[in-house]
């Protein structure tokens, strides 16, 4: 019998790691990777709440599925953006894509 706290702690840690990745990676693709980690941690929470709550209430699973969809959409668009940026600016380093300043 695994207590709920384990899952929550794990997902919190995963979330923080993803956050770190998003904040600190240079490469835009890597930033997206971090976002994926965060989404997954959210999913873990959703599913574990489903399991530890009333399992006849499907909300947890349903929303994690919707998170899947959102993640897929986000990756598709994000990577498309990255690629087109690479085509124009010939770099994917987030710090070098700083036209929006001054």
């Amino acid at each position, binding site marked *: 019998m695994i207590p709920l706290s384990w899952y929550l702690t794990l997902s919190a840690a995963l979330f923080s*790691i993803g956050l770190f990745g998003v904040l600190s990676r240079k490469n835009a693709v890597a930033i997206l*990777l971090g976002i994926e980690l965060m989404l997954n941690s959210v999913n*873990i929470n959703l599913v574990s709440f489903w399991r530890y709550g009333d399992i006849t209430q*499907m*909300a947890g699973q349903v929303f994690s599925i919707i998170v*899947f*969809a959102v*993640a*897929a959409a986000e990756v598709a668009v994000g990577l*498309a953006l990255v690629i087109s940026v690479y085509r124009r600016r010939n770099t994917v380093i987030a710090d070098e894509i700083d036209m929006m300043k001054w």
Partner: protein
Amino acid sequence: MTIMQIIFLVVGAVILGSALMVVTTGNLIHAALWLIVTLFGVAVLYALLNASFLAVVQIVIYIGAIAILFIFAVMLTRKEMRDRGPQLNSAWWLSAIIALLTFGGLIWILQSWGDFARLPADFPTGFDAVGLLGNALVSPDAFVLPFEVASVLLLAALVGAVYVAFNRK
């Protein structure tokens, strides 16, 4: 310390370790591959949580589609095989502090919650979670609307991605 707990600990260690590799490793392809390990671990967690459908879907969508997409993107956005120089920006220590703060804050708030350490009700045998999920996804008094909206979102993302990445020359 039951076998379940052992499995959980192992999987959790794998997940966290690989996640750390994802955000720290210098080689992007490796980062993507480590991400796949993480995703696989998460799928195992789903299996532990008796959400078999989600476990499989996790593998199909994340590993089968998203991760491979990532690898493609990595390959498409580089000239040579290795990335040179540090992969973390100069403020990485600050990010680390913030991440730690977030983690600490989350745990701090969570542990003040009464049900934090609750145990699961044991899973009824022959409980058809997949069927319930299917019904919940399409029955009008449940989640059919969010579901459809999600599908529309996917379509929009599809079109948008094609449009954005289209090579106008």
